[in-house]
């Protein structure tokens, strides 16, 4: 289509077309210190919302052959505080509370009465490295049944002997590969790897694999997302 115009009119057309681009300036909101934090928090929350939707409750994480395992000595020990918080194994219990029918203290022997599952799965750190480890333990879903967790509850939070704390959404907690882990490489957990009980959640990022568990709470609302979440990491971070 051709048309005739004059230079004055053409300037006006150009100015109007340029002004139509002004919505681009809205991105400048990210440069305003006061707005930056809430905007990024919203962006992260949106990513978490999308992540929860992408999560397939029946979708299994890939498992590996024994030959693909990272040697135990090369499985990183990532304590946020101390590698060994000095747990007293003789008197250790997992204290269960919240929306459950049978709250109270559970011993390791009680947890070990549940069927044991072993899996070679990938552990992915938020930093970007990954290792393939062998984990053994009881399904978290079975334990939730044992303690009579409210089926309508939405979250699980755990406390650790080193003051670390973490949370899981219920869909992930009930995933068949989510373990209350008490063995690595077919040996009882070592202190550095979270003895006597840790989480092994192959569908979650590394910082969700809490070690040295002491308390487990079932809840309808998320009170404390986790130590790293409080520093600014994603609350959901499903893989």
């Amino acid at each position, binding site marked *: 289509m051709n048309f005739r115009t004059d230079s004055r009119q*053409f300037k006006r057309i150009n100015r109007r077309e340029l002004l139509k681009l002004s919505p681009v300036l809205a991105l400048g909101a990210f440069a305003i210190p006061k707005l930056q934090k809430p905007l990024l928090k919203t962006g992260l929350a949106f990513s978490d919302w999308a992540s929860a939707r992408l999560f397939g409750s029946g979708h299994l994480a890939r498992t590996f052959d024994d030959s693909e395992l990272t040697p135990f000595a090369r499985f990183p020990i990532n304590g946020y505080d101390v590698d060994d918080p000095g747990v007293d194994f003789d008197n250790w219990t997992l204290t269960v509370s919240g929306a459950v029918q049978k709250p109270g203290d559970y011993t390791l022997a009680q947890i070990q009465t549940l069927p044991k599952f072993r899996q070679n799965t990938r552990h992915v750190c938020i930093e970007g490295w990954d290792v393939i480890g062998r984990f053994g333990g009881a399904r978290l879903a079975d334990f939730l049944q044992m303690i009579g967790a409210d089926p309508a509850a939405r979250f699980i939070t755990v406390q650790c002997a080193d003051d670390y704390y973490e949370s899981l959404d219920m869909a992930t907690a009930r995933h068949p590969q989510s373990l209350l882990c008490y063995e690595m490489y077919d040996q009882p957990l070592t202190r550095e790897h979270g003895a006597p009980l840790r989480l092994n959640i192959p569908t979650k990022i590394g910082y969700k694999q809490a070690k040295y568990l002491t308390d487990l709470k079932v809840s309808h609302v998320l009170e404390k997302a986790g130590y790293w979440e409080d520093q600014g990491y994603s609350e959901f971070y499903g893989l």
Partner: protein
Amino acid sequence: MSTQIAAITNVKTGVIDEAVYEHPFIVRLCHWVNALALLVMVFSGLQIFRAFPSFGAKIPQKDLLHWPKAYALGGWLGGGLQWHLTFMWIYIGTGLLYLNYEIFSRNYKQVLFMPRDIRGVWPMVHHYFFFGPKPYVREAYNPLQKLAYTSAIVLGILSVLTGLAIWKPVQFSWLAWLMGGFRWARLWHFAVMWAILAFLFGHLVMVVLHGWNNFVSMLTGWKKDPEYL
């Protein structure tokens, strides 16, 4: 696809100039928003990379390169991830809007590199890099330009797919598998970024070489005195 052409009479001199409406509004909007999002993705991505600047094992760790903190966005890994996981939606959103627009408006004919463009590539390379004669230009983009833009679009799509494979290696395990596994997907994601930066470098050099009228066309849509009219 009908291109708008304007004949502009200069009110002072009476000289008639011509201008072509090269870039529709959606294209310009997506171009600038995506450009900003791309910069955020690159510098927040480099912040994330700093946390583990390697593509091998954690123990023992062999670092590929140390990227200076001053040239990374977010202050620390968590901050970098917040920027990355926020702007990826803007990056993907403008990318999808652009692709849909190009397809449904049939504007892609202006950009998409087709087999018939192949024979026009060498003359342009010859002209740009070896001072060969300037080939005759009939349309908005020459064959080399089309090749560059089409490559950039492909790289953009690859940046999203490789990113998805390392963000969700379990849910999109097939993607990670296609890329040779989680570590390879990470490496591809990194390599695609450098490829995009290489395109960006060439793009900016060309923008400088082609002058003001060409630059303005991406702001207002109108290119004055295009050489192909």
